[in-house]
């Protein structure tokens, strides 16, 4: 029996989400479809860590009544919690972006040795083209590396349907399953036919130490993983989503993911072997397919994952990455270009200047103050080693004062290492820059080391009371659970003290002078130090609701010194004759410009009365 059909035959019992079951077809993004798929598959829990393009999956699930959804402190915790749920016999979906899987990898590599009781499905949302990521990382290799089956939907409908299939595979073969999407699956909308929620019984946990206590029994468990993969390879050969769509008998194409859709645009009449499950690889089906054609195009986004599997099995009449680009996001025009030589239209920038609109700090963003100040401290040999968050923009003009950024939490260890290497001459004064969310995600162990090292080293925690970059999710320091209910709130200052940091400065960065002073004191302090730059993100709901008066310009007082312009505020347009032109619609009245205005030409309206 086909795995996909089992769920649909079961009837739902006592479903609560009445509203959702009325409409039959909806326009949904891949992420919304995965959330719906989790609901239909009777999933009990969803855990995850926010990250583009995965975030909306958990956010959508959080609106459902029947599933408990909770952000974790980081991706490894999310997967560990998912494993716990699976061990207790229930279904868990775990969501993250591609680089999140790096964080969760320690657990992902081992759990297959024991294997699931309740189903465990890991969503890896990859970001080809790096729209919002630090690297391009094809996580199909992670499935192969961890020896877990890999499902790849081609559109939102499959994204939904694959969730149920993934859970059935997970339970039948006792393995975690990776469901991998990309930006153009997660964030593309299409029609999705809806189903009902199935009720899934909790499976019984039974003590089985030789299975679940992996290290002492790892050698015994090792063959289980390979035997399972063999059985899964058999499944892959007959899987209904590894199917052939007949077309022109002379043109053969193997494609997976959204690349299939692009291929369909460019080679509309070809015969297609569509891969919904590329690992374990359906080698015999692929061999039989390729034997029918002189040459087969392998069209996949990113790395030559399918191509390598074909070559591994001795199938060589294929054209893959020698034509289809390995870097960047694929699209129909690139494919038409490499397959047919069709030129890609270029923008009109050669004939008329098209100024860019680079991403900027939001109006009134507290990070603006931090980097305004840091820029002015660069002549004091301050080197700011940064992290992942909105504040990465502090490395771009007009601030250009955050000098490094790699991955979640790296700033702390980087700053410590940099300090260690330059402690003799203090030629560089290293300062780590990290947000509150990122600090809680991956910064705590680094700070513990910084505390124990007892050398001059500083960490600035830009605490805006939210996970801002991905859309203001709750974190352990916000005092709210994912559903908005009050919960334990970690006190960041007490936490930092408990880690052993004695010199702690706390400052509202809107006070630019004090910000600078606090930073200088921390940097000059002998021993490790932490500065909390503390102001709430203005995009938070409660902050947005505040009435904010725009700043006023007293033209006669302005001496055209341009100090306000140096802030790089989007609400200030500079005119060499009139001085600052304040956009009253945009201005949120943060008063940073007023603070910088020596002749007091910029004032708040209440000062005028």
């Amino acid at each position, binding site marked *: 029996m086909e795995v996909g059909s089992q769920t649909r035959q079961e009837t739902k019992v006592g479903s609560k989400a009445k509203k959702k079951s009325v409409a039959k*077809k909806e*326009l949904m993004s891949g992420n919304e479809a995965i959330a719906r798929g989790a609901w239909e598959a009777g999933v009990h829990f969803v855990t995850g860590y926010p990250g*583009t*393009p995965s*975030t909306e999956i958990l956010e959508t699930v959080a609106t459902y009544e029947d599933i408990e959804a909770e952000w974790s402190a980081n991706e490894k915790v999310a997967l560990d919690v998912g494993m716990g749920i699976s061990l207790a016999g229930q279904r868990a979906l775990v969501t993250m972006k591609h680089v999140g899987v790096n964080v969760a990898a320690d657990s992902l590599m081992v759990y297959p040795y024991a294997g699931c009781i309740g189903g465990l499905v890991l969503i890896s949302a990859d970001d080809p083209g790096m*729209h*919002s990521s630090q690297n391009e990382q094809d996580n199909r290799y992670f499935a192969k590396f961890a020896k877990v089956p890999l499902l790849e939907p081609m*559109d939102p409908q499959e994204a939904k349907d694959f969730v149920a299939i993934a859970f059935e595979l997970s339970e039948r073969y006792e393995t975690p399953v990776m469901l991998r999407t990309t*930006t*153009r699956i997660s*964030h*593309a*909308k*299409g*029609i999705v036919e809806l189903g009902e929620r199935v009720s899934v019984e909790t499976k019984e946990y039974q003590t089985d130490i030789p299975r679940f206590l992996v290290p002492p029994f790892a050698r015994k468990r090792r063959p289980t993983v390979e035997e399972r993969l063999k059985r899964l390879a058999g499944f892959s050969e007959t899987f209904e989503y590894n199917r052939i769509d007949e077309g022109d008998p002379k043109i053969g194409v193997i494609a997976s993911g*959204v690349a*299939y*859709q*692009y291929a*369909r*645009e460019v080679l509309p009449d070809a015969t297609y072997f569509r891969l919904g499950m590329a690992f374990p690889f359906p080698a015999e089906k692929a061999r039989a397919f390729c034997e029918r054609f002189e040459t087969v195009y392998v069209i996949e986004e990113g790395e030559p994952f399918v191509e390598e599997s074909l070559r591994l099995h001795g199938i060589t009449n294929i054209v893959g990455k020698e034509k289809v680009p390995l870097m960047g996001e694929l*699209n*129909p*025009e690139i494919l*038409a270009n490499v397959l047919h030589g069709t030129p*890609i*239209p*270029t*923008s*009109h920038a050669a*004939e*008329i*200047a*098209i*100024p*860019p*609109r*680079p*991403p*900027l*700090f*939001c109006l009134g963003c507290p990070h603006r103050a931090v980097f305004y100040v840091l820029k002015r401290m660069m002549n004091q040999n301050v080197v700011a080693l940064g992290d992942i968050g*909105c504040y*990465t*923009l502090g490395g771009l*003009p*007009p601030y250009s004062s955050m000098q490094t950024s790699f991955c979640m939490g790296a700033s702390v260890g980087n700053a410590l290492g940099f300090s260690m290497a330059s402690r003799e001459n203090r030629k560089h004064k290293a300062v780590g820059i990290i947000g509150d969310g990122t600090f809680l995600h991956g910064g705590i162990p680094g700070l513990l080391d910084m505390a124990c090292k007892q050398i001059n080293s500083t960490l600035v925690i830009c605490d805006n009371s939210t996970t801002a*970059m*991905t859309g203001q999710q709750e974190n352990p320091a916000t005092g709210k659970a994912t559903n908005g209910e009050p919960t334990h709130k970690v006190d960041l200052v007490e936490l930092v003290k408990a880690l052993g940091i004695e010199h702690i400065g706390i400052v509202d960065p809107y006070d630019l002078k004090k910000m600078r002073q606090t930073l200088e004191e921390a940097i000059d302090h002998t021993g490790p130090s932490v500065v909390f730059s503390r102001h709430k993100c203005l995009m938070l709901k409660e902050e947005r609701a505040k009435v904010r008066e725009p700043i006023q310009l007293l033209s006669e007082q302005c001496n055209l010194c*341009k100090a306000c*312009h*140096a*802030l*790089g505020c*989007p609400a200030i*347009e*500079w005119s060499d004759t009139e001085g600052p032109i304040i956009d009253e619609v945009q201005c949120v009245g943060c008063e940073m410009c007023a603070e910088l205005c020596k002749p007091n030409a910029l004032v708040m309206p209440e000062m005028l009365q």
Partner: protein
Amino acid sequence: MNQIQRQTTNVLMAGVGGQGVLLASEALALAALADGMEAKQSEVHGVAQRGGSVVSHVRFGQRVYSPLIRCGEADVLYAAERLEALRYAHYLRPRGRIVLNDHVLKPIQLPDEPEQPYPEAIPEFLRGKGYEVDLIPALEIALELGEKRCANVVLLGALSTRLDLSDQAWRSGLEKRVPERILTLNLEAFARGRGLVSASAG
């Protein structure tokens, strides 16, 4: 197969973050669905959106594969701002149409960076390239209606005259996407935009 085979229609929708381009593009995709077609829509979220230019691809027809419009094959460009029309015009097919909000949003001039003047005469340049340009005073009309934020829907009304979708489908798309408390205003905004182009074209 008695059904009329319809080509896929490609509408690229561009603007600046905060102009409501995504709402308009979803309303369009939903309208196409309401008329019994398949629709796909694609955009990019995240850091790419902060204060930057926003672009959304909408495709509809009997069978739609790619969620991205092939560059050079867009039928219509919905542009909520002049500079963004210029930025994405090359996505249009030859002689494609631009439904353009007559609105200028200057990108911020960063301190200590070389000045980048806002290009002059954008509609004229685009016409010179062979594109059809409907210059729509969407913001002006929205201000008349007392809510500048519905300029996106005024422009959507103007766009509607260039696409083959029924009145009911448009209404359904708006009803599904626009919050109920501002629906009446937006239906009015849509009607104003729709009336505008048919009047000038007639």
